[in-house]
């Protein structure tokens, strides 16, 4: 069934179709609509779930952890400041191996107060052990939520789906909603082996000496490594159901490209259009959309870019003191593997618009240049 949905509502629908059982959330612009909608749905009885109206995002994640630990499917949503506030509990959820799914709206970190698109918030959480999906359309958001539960519950690692504030959260798009019966077939109820169960009393998360902690981390990493085939397998299964396939990367016209642009989020969708235009101009440019950065799809990326001559990474973020984060990660993937010059571009921080012309401009600049640079700021008004 097709509907026009705001990105935020696509997220709510995702949670609803996934039959989330406990929602523990705190409002923050521009995510507010997600939880408001869910609260409404639960109150109306359309979704059989418990809604905990927590007093902070830290508690939002804690509530999810408690619920997930009992074997319930937990969900929450947040953005920038809220995501930062729950940072401690993000570590907790991942180390506790709880398959919580969260929606994050990529919003700039304060101060100055900015409610607009910027990826620094989600990228600051790279080391917590969460799988990270960068959605670029409302359809993507809805489908990714369902896929995330499937994959998380198999691997026992939490996932968050993140997408650009306002450009996606508050934009209407056409979304094809799979019927709930299909989703139920794809996503059975959550049934973990270990949970808080009075018939099998155990302690979780006790004092752990150096004798055991190391192995816990090892197992976590192993789970992340196993995630890559699991994600693809789930993607294929979902494709059979809906006709839509989701992978860790989505290359567009990269097979014969001289220059590959590496993008994520809404910029990726804009870049697809830019690539078509550049091609018409005779330039052999391709777009590599990175959808999942944790686990990092190193092998997939290497396969796609193996024949290209130049790479330009477009980051809507920056790790101050170094350079764009997607650029950093890409370079480290190439090291010891392939020698291809990489240009790093910064654009659109704090919600500044990124137009098709901007992308074409980046492509032209890279094609003309021979010396790669790590950090090129686009459109600085100083």
């Amino acid at each position, binding site marked *: 069934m097709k509907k026009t949905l705001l990105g935020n509502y696509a997220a709510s629908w995702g949670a609803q179709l996934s039959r989330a*059982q*406990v929602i*523990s959330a705190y409002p923050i612009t521009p995510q507010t609509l997600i939880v408001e909608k869910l609260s409404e749905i639960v109150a109306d009885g359309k979704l*059989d*779930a*418990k809604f*905990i*109206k*927590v*007093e*902070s995002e*830290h*508690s939002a994640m*804690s*509530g*999810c*952890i*408690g*619920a*997930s*630990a*009992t*074997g*319930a499917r*937990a969900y929450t949503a947040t953005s920038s400041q809220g995501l930062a506030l729950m940072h*401690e*509990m993000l570590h*907790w959820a991942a180390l506790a191996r709880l398959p919580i799914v969260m929606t994050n709206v990529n919003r700039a970190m304060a101060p100055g107060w900015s409610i607009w698109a910027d990826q620094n918030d989600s990228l600051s959480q790279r080391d917590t052990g969460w799988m990270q999906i960068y959605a670029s359309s409302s359809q993507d958001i809805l489908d990714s939520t369902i896929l995330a539960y499937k994959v998380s519950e198999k691997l026992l690692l939490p996932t968050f789906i993140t997408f650009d504030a306002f450009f996606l959260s508050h934009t209407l798009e056409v979304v094809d909603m799979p019927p709930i019966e299909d989703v139920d077939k794809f996503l059975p109820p959550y049934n973990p082996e270990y949970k*808080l*169960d*009075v018939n*099998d*009393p*155990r*302690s*979780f*998360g*006790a*004092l*752990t*000496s150096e004798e*055991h902690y190391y192995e816990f981390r090892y197992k976590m990493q192993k789970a992340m490594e196993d995630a890559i085939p699991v994600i693809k397998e789930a993607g294929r299964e979902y494709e059979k159901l809906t006709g839509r396939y989701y992978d860790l990367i989505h290359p567009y016209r990269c097979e014969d490209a001289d220059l590959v642009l590496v993008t994520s989020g809404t910029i990726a969708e804009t870049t697809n259009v830019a690539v078509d235009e550049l091609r018409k101009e005779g330039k052999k440019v391709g777009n590599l959309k990175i959808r999942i950065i944790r686990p990092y799809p190193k092998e997939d990326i290497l396969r796609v870019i193996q024949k290209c001559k130049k790479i330009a990474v477009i980051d809507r973020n920056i790790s101050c003191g170094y350079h764009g984060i997607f650029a950093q990660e890409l370079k480290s993937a190439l090291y010891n593997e392939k020698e291809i010059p990489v240009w790093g571009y910064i654009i659109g921080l704090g919600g500044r618009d990124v137009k098709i012309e901007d992308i074409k401009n980046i492509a032209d600049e890279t094609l003309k240049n021979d010396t790669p640079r790590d950090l090129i700021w686009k459109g600085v008004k100083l």
Partner: protein
Amino acid sequence: MKLTIPEREIMQPGHLACQGCGGSLAMRYALKVFGKDTILTIPACCWSVIDGPFPYTAVGVPLFHTAFETAAIMASGIKAGLDIQGKTSTNVIAWAGDGGTFDIGIASLSGAAERNDDITYICYDNEAYMNCLSLDSLIMTKNGLKKITEVKLGEEVYAYNQKTGELTLKKCIGIFDNGVKKVFEVNTLHHTIKATSNHPFLVLKRNGRGKKSYFVWKELKDLMEDNEIVVLKKLMPGKGFKFNPIKLSKKGDYKVNKINEIEIPEASSENLMELLGLYVGDGWVRPQKAEVGFALPKNSKGSEKLISLYKEVFNQNLVQKDESYIYVYSVNLAKFIDSLGFEKGAKNKIIPAWVFTLPEHEKEAFVRGLMLSDGYKFKNSNRYVSASYDLLRTLRLLLQTIGYQVGKIHQQTKKKGTLCVYRQLLEDSTYGYISFSKKKKPNISKYLSQLKQRDFLADNEYFSTEKVTSIKFIKEEPTLDLRVEGEHNFIADGIVVHNTGIQRSSATPHGAWTTTTPVKHYKKGRKKNIVEIMAAHRVPYTATASVGYPEDFIKKLKKAKETRGFKFLHVLAPCPTGWKSDPKYTVKLAKLAVQTDVFPLYEVEDGIHYRQTIKVKERKLVTEYFKYQGRFKHLKEEEVEFIQKKIDEDYKILLKKFQ
């Protein structure tokens, strides 16, 4: 007799609680009531450790460890997860210490209370505080003068009997490492001590004619120059010391081809002590070379005396072959001397503890020996020189115990080549000297009142008072303190000091907090009244409880279990470690807190119906509660009075609320 406390045990033994832990007692009662259909969540607090490390657990029910500030919300999340799965009968308990409840955890606590989530939150409340002496303080123990770091638990130390003014022996019942603190030096004419600003000294309060003078405990920071403090004058007469038998080598042992058959004395004697005095000044020992040596020139007074003493003690003839040194080669003698504890090296020698337990004549002999080596007469007094500061400190205290008055330790540097006693210095050396002379026995009967002007305790055999000459800040250093039973004071560096417990307490005994990662901090104000805060949230049920009143606690636990919505219990759980109390008094203290109205037992329904659940029949004063706790020991009388007043006021206010 009707048993109101369920017999079944849910919690198992083998957990890691301290002896006498109130918190473990509280958990045991709680689990007895709630039973197996319970899930616990515990944030960072003692119980994070008490339950045992991975892979062990003691509670017997599912337990989810959680982050410090999240106890309440974690319980809410667990409850929601269980409810949605239809497991609605399971009790969910958030079990937290006071930090995770009052401070960092208050936001999530308030959220859960406001939502009226169907969980039980039990806060087990233990409170703690501290204060201290420098690590090189020398304590007068039954076994002699020891460094504070060497005092053993249970060892008897000398103390000042505050009622009779007598010297008494009391057991040390606690040794506390109080971390790095700012340390100050207090000097009197004959004594020096290093302590923290809140360490109490016994100060004389002189009142005019017709009024009684008396002693009060004053903290270092309130001490002023010319304040008269109580110091040790003399120790009780000692007995000869029996040496610990050492394993003697015999011919045939590894590397022992021939043996110098020497009779090692079993106990101390005057002659031996004089010989050891000489040894401290001029001798050395090299046990690996089986060598004992003395730096005494041939035919000098010292060398002749040594030879004669040696004959008396060991029944052997010493022969001096070298011009400047006498050597004795005997593996057993070397072992013996080495075992006595004088340490090695000119800069490191000290007087070991056991010398302080000797009878006066043996101590005098020791001093004679010392004087023969590095001492000399200077005008009307004696002087002893040494490169070892610690030796001078301990000697000063030793001399004071046998009736000498000793001046302060003077330090000086002498350049290389200077003639020092018998020989020239090989390099620049810093050393000190002390002057001492026998105290004249004052005519107490005739001039007592005049004598008392100078020394209030002139007629006291063991103690005197001395004026404080200076107080200055030294530096920040690690500190320790002792807890002494009974008198709660001991003698450090010759000065009578109070044992510790706390410093600036708050207006009420409730004040601060410890967590599993001991972050010790203290407050001057009242602690938050958490039950009132919960009542303000209009939660269905909230109550105070004490492990000293288990049946009352059980009743409240049962009520919590049967009530739907948010329940909060505040349980007083004494902590012997933090409260500096004897573990055997945990229940007693938990009772006294209630009997003194420090922790009244009551419950509140719907935030408005207050009911007192235990009416104290014989109300006791707060001093009775403080008596068993080291942490309140330093409180001044005025402070205790103030606290008593606050307790009385707060209780009056609470009384009005009861229906």
